């Protein structure tokens, strides 16, 4: 398979799968088979790209001219490769998990769920492979829209409210801030291609550049830089697999991916550092503030949501330092956080399915009944905190190294403090689950359905595995900064 064909197929496979799923709405087993087959195919398809990209190729596919001089275009480069790999692998895992979850909880509208899930993956692939900013923006907005039905899946008042905030914040930021930034970039640079070294270099400077940067950073609302983070906790009304999708695979990763893309390919890492000087402070503030909120949240999903907000800002922080090592750290953290956070959500969903519990304070002794679940949760927590032997350690290591390289003492302080805070809100859950005695009056229950446990174990294993075999992601991350 030629790389060009693979790039065309990557967004197409999930889209076709969505049609297939819709067609099979009367036969649930067949429907699930379609999803699983498509996700397996997608992994093969993305894998076939690894070789050429690792060899330094950047194949291009140009579809049609959307605006004069601006085509809908796919072009794969190391960062996109990394993102596509993560998203495609996690689609398979989360599909398995979702099947267990949706059936275990007797959810309604399952077909619609899987259709939108597949479409979200299609949009994510589009983002990962986008060859220019306009293509990226198109898929970015598409992702917002196709995930809306997932967020409002339950269709009740709470879902409607959550959906409004979700859509409101994401549309507000992207239309009012991100889009003018894109148009201004086009007006300034005359191109929107992703060029190593950036397209804005020498085109804009000083206050103008700072405003443009701010438009991008706050406009990419999916990266959840405060105050654009409000959609994330609101989206928690969705079923847990959706939260996993939003937080680990598609939406937030699309956000930080776009941030890194913009920093590396639009501004360029050799851009005037003074323009970026304010950004670490905002990101640092977000990290600390979100961690503090997480610390106080009793609802498990809410705690995870704020943890996500804080983790995303690590990536923004690292990217904003413009140091090669920290950018590598940012790229790695996309992967690390993805596998870690999806495990955490899987665990939260498993607990809800098996024990119908949603709050941290209810989790006394849960580890005795659901050892696999809580073990996976523990491993993922380590990754979030940044301790070995989990992959989170690797990415944090690079970030700190980058901060040292750039003499950003504030960034180092933020990372250290937040590590403590992370430990502060994750470890008590693990402790409570394994070591506090459960309430004896509770109904007995075991693990969640096997597909869920299997998916969770797989991602937990990946979290550890990537610590020991970090070569591949590291290779791509290094290529990103021309190393």
């Amino acid at each position, binding site marked *: 398979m030629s790389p060009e064909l693979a790039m065309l197929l990557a967004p197409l496979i999930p889209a076709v799968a969505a049609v297939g799923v819709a067609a099979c709405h009367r036969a649930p087993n067949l429907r699930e088979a379609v999803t699983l087959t498509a996700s397996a195919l997608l992994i093969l398809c993305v894998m076939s790209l690894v070789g050429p990209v690792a060899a330094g190729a950047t194949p291009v596919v140009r579809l049609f001219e959307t605006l*004069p001089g601006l085509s809908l275009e796919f072009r794969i480069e190391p960062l996109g490769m990394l993102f596509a790999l993560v998203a495609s692998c996690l689609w398979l895992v989360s599909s398995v998990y979702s099947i267990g979850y949706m059936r275990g909880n007797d959810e309604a509208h399952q077909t619609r769920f899987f259709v939108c899930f597949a479409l979200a993956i299609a949009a994510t692939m589009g983002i990962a492979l986008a060859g220019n900013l306009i293509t990226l923006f198109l898929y970015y907005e598409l992702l917002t*829209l196709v995930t809306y039905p997932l967020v409002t899946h339950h269709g009740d008042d709470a879902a409607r409210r959550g959906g409004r905030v979700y859509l409101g914040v994401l549309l507000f930021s992207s*239309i009012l801030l991100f889009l*003018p930034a894109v148009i201004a970039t086009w007006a300034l640079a005359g191109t929107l291609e992703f060029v190593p070294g950036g397209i804005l270099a020498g085109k804009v400077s000083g206050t103008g550049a700072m405003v443009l940067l701010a438009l991008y950073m706050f406009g990419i609302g999916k990266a959840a830089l405060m105050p654009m983070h409000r959609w994330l906790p609101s989206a928690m009304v969705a079923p847990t697999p959706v939260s996993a999708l939003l937080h680990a695979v598609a939406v937030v990763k699309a956000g930080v991916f776009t941030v890194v893309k913009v920093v590396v390919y639009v501004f360029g890492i050799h851009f005037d550092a003074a323009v970026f000087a304010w950004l670490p402070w905002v990101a640092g503030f977000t990290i600390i503030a979100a961690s503090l909120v997480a610390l106080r949240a009793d609802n498990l999903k809410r705690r995870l949501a704020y943890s996500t907000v804080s983790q995303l800002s690590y990536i923004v922080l690292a990217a904003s330092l413009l140091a090669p090592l920290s950018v590598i750290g940012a790229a790695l953290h996309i992967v690390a956080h993805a596998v870690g956070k999806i495990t955490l959500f899987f665990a939260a969903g498993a607990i809800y399915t098996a024990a119908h519990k949603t709050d941290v304070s209810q989790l006394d002794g849960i580890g005795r009944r659901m050892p696999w679940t809580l073990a996976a949760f523990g491993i993922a927590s380590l990754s979030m905190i940044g301790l070995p032997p989990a992959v989170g350690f690797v990415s944090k290591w690079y970030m700190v190294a980058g901060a040292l390289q750039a003499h950003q003492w504030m960034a180092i302080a933020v990372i250290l403090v937040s590590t403590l805070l992370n430990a502060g809100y994750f470890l008590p859950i693990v402790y409570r689950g394994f070591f506090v005695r459960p309430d004896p009056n509770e109904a007995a229950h075991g693990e969640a359905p096997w597909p869920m446990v299997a998916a969770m174990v797989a991602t937990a294993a990946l979290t550890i595995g990537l610590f020991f075999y970090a070569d591949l992601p590291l290779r791509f991350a290094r290529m990103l900064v021309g190393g």
Partner: protein
Amino acid sequence: MILDHLPALQVVLPLISAPVIVLVRRSRFAWLMAVAVSWVAAAIAVMLAIRVADAGVISYALGNWQPPWGIEYRVDPLSAFVLVLVAGTAAIVAPFSRISVVAELPREQEYLLYAMFCLCLAGLLGITITGDVFNLFVFLEISSLSTYVMVALGQKRQALAAAYRYLIMGTIAATFYVIGIGMLYLMTGTLNMADLSVRLADVTDVRPILAAFAFITVGIGLKLALFPLHQWLPNAYTFAPSAVTAFLGATATKVSIYVLLRFYFTVFGTTLLFRAMPTDQVLMLLSLLGAVTASLVAVFQKDIKRMFAYSSVGQVGYITLGISLANTSGLTAAVVHLLNHAVTKGAIFILIAGITLRTGGASGFDRLKGIGSRMPFTSFGIVIGGLSLIGVPGTAGFVSKWYLVLGAIQRGEWIVAAVVLASSLIAAAYVWKFVETAYLTKPDESSVKAGEAPLPMLAFAWFMVVLCVFLGLDTSLSVGGARAAADFLLGGLR
């Protein structure tokens, strides 16, 4: 040989078909005639557009009297663009119209509605193609009178009041226009647009010209529903028969905007107006006010037809905003949005026609609860159309908004760019009102029970929905045509 007479046939064929329909007085024949004529007109329009693209401006002297003594038909890139738009919309609306006309009108009135439809089409095409300012007035009246009748044929009694109001406003508008061209005529002695633009440059006393400009702007502004002259529009669109709303929503205001463009850039020339008067600032302000307030009002409507009618007023604001920017990007945005909005609104109003067919004429939101599962294709089509109104990338509306914002940024009008984008968020608010009603509200006993709209209707509507997405992805034709028209208009200044 016949190809040389295409400009005349473009208008005359629909014009002749109306009396033929009245002679025959059979509703099925009338419908077939309307369909045939609109398809032929669309084919002629496309042929004309191709010829203009190949060989430049076409001038056709009616009665073989050379302009400025006789009446001239003139097809240039802009008018060709609008001709295709109008005739194309008619060709799409006419075939399915029978379904909703049969349901909404008494049998004896059906053939008259088709006659009016043909007259309206002839009028709109005549306005677009003519190169004579007084001939424009005549065809303006043909299209206006037929429109009043079509609106009045709506089912509810409010249709009558809406038609009356439209008649009063429309006649004031036309009279303003006549006053304006009267002054131009007194100062130049000619009625031919091309001749006018030449002779206006030599006029020394500009006071009558400025007054004429003001009268023409207000007159046409009334017709195109420029804020705050838009009051006739919402009721007219809401209570007209559904097929009529679909046709008018896509074409009527667009043709008026074309007239405005024609006068601003061909007849007057920006040198005279944009220097002598703060036209651009005034128009810009009104456009922005219109875009924002109309969209806000739309959010609070209880009736979906009315909501999208107000949305039309807001969208017209974008187009006039593009005109007021008076640079290539802005004009391109204006012209391309003529098409993009026509396609979008055409699709939406056809789908709403499908809904009212099933509800027996009602279009209140309380009847639409849970319609997403009852009429999935209809609802989803409206959602896609709505996304285009918001300007989501991948839809036609995005392309227009892109050029509009680009034009504003190129002029350094950052606030304008911000307001445009903010108003599209308001559009999101009213579109989402439909989404929540259709998908996130449980149906109750008042909501519609019936199933999907008839297939032909869906087919034509979805053709436009797909077109709406296509025009958002591949813009070589739409933006290409609009760009040519914009360059032509701006080139006409030098």
